[in-house]
């Protein structure tokens, strides 16, 4: 076999610039290793970057295959990131009050040229619900919840619930007919919570003498809506939960989730 001779390409200005850049003090203070082309630097890149550090350094061959993971967990995470970004932009335009909520959404549609942030946020949310379900389905079908990953499955289920709640709280914010009636239908269920809802079984038992402890103005539904119907209080509560409470909770759990994927030995595979 003929020996191939590696001829160094002529260094154009771009390459020269690149070479200069990677030697500067600033660059070297950020990336503390050479480009990841050798085994050693491939380890270093994973260990010295906080984001990449969520991954292991090496991983089973089957684990990187679409065939095995369908990439559904990764897509869920990516959709979450893009929802955070688009949601943040939407918050610039939106005020959660009866007076402004609807008109702000109309304004978003009519006054923002080429605006697709609302679309990206809404369709991204729908898509995330679907990818999380499919991710769960994949994890089930590969038996990946079995030891040692039982706890991570449980963390996942909680995130699934949070994903649905995020979607649900967001559904109210446009404050149109679709929104308030969907939330009315959904939150009416809370009326029937056993013991804690005023139309729930057992609630009638909770009384002091003649005074019922659980009634329409203090039951589970009231706590959810901040009122006896879907109104101002509900809008504010859902807004705060949607933009602050639930995203924070799910972000923390995602950190736990990813960390555990690593600590449980990376993507699952036959022993």
């Amino acid at each position, binding site marked *: 076999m003929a020996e191939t001779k590696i001829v160094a390409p002529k260094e154009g200005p771009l390459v020269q610039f690149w070479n200069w850049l990677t030697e500067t003090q600033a660059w070297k203070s950020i990336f503390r290793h050479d480009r990841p082309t050798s085994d050693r630097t491939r380890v270093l890149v994973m260990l010295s970057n906080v984001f990449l550090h969520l991954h292991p350094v090496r991983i*089973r061959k089957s684990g990187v295959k679409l065939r095995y993971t369908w990439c559904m967990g990764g897509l869920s995470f990516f959709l979450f990131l893009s929802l955070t970004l688009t949601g943040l932009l939407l918050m610039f335009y939106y005020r959660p009050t009866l007076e402004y909520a609807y008109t702000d959404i109309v304004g978003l549609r009519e006054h923002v040229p080429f605006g697709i942030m*609302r679309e990206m946020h809404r369709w991204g949310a729908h898509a995330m619900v*679907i990818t999380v379900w499919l991710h769960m*389905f994949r994890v089930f079908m590969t*038996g990946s919840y079995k030891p040692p990953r039982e706890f991570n499955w449980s963390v996942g289920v909680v995130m699934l619930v949070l994903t*649905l709640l995020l979607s649900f709280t967001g559904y109210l914010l446009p404050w149109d007919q679709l929104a*308030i009636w969907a939330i009315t*239908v959904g939150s009416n269920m809370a009326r029937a919570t*056993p013991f804690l809802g005023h139309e729930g079984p057992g609630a009638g038992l909770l009384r002091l003498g003649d005074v019922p402890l659980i009634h329409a103005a203090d039951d589970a539904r009231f706590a959810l809506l901040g009122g006896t119907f879907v109104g101002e209080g509900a809008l504010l509560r859902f807004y705060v939960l949607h933009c602050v409470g639930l995203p924070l909770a799910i972000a923390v759990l995602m950190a736990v989730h990813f960390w555990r994927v690593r600590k449980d030995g990376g993507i699952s595979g036959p022993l």
Partner: protein
Amino acid sequence: MGFVKGIFNAAADPRLFFLLAVISLAILVWKREQVASNSFGYGVLGCLAIFFAFGSFDANFRLIVTKPDNVPIVGLIFMLVFFVWYSLREGVLNDRRIVKGEGPIEKAESDRVWVWPDLVYIELIALIVCSVVLIVWSIVLKAPLEQPANPANTPNPSKAPWYFLGLQEMLVYFDPWLAGVVLPTLIVVGLICIPYIDTNPKGNGYYTFTERKAEITIFLFGFAVLWASLIVLGTFLRGPNWNFFGPFEFWDVHKLEALTNVNLSEYIWVRALGRGLPQAWYVRELFGILLVLFYVGALPALLGKSLFKGYYEKMGAARYYVGVFLFLMMMSLPIKMLCRWLFNLKYVVAIGEFFFNI
């Protein structure tokens, strides 16, 4: 054409729809060797695509399928069908390898690769593809915005967001305290419990069917038949007053459906024993209460001694009882559906005095 549409309208009746879903699952599981072939999978997807393509020539069908918030569910149908088929196929392929003594394909791929670049570049591609899909989707399809909220004007039908429509569909068969609170809680608790109940050490980290027959069948029943197909039913086939409408049927607000549902107490006291309903609720509902107590209290123990004896021995008492309880709770939905369809049964226990109806 009208005739074909009529057939589809009839097949989409909740009873037939549900039955067809169960039968499809049974075929999938039984005939999995044939199902695993590519021609079967793509054939089914192709038929689905043809159905939606031809369906969209129909005004009523188009109206409901192209509602912006329903579009993702059309996508969900395709993805779900694909991934259910795909995961079964991978299972079957691995099972064949296992029989030959080769071990699952994942075993052959156990050697490690570098995350940088092998995984990171896949993630980058996935990220780009996902962004492009999302952006194109957002340009093509506008997010819906209806009339401003008006508490005085209730739309008919009023539907929950689509991912909760399975729960809303359960409201047909159960009261809100069960359909909206207790059963959803049990779904979540049940999912969390899965890894702790399932002690089968096999099938950890690879696709397989034969090594996990019962687990996979039960999960598919809950996930695909109960959860997903009821969402499809609730989204596309439930119209005004939560009445049933075929996919090619006009949503007529005045459609009437005879409601002649009867409580168990009336069946027993009035129709069987030929007397009036007793005054006191605990006498009136005695039979229903006994039946429910039997279902949750005695049946698990009985099953553990007979049909599920093997599981009882393998899993131990605690796991067995938790598992069977959750299983019976899941089965309470199809059981109640059947009772409704066959006997027009309304409530097994009906203590309206305490909002306690089952």
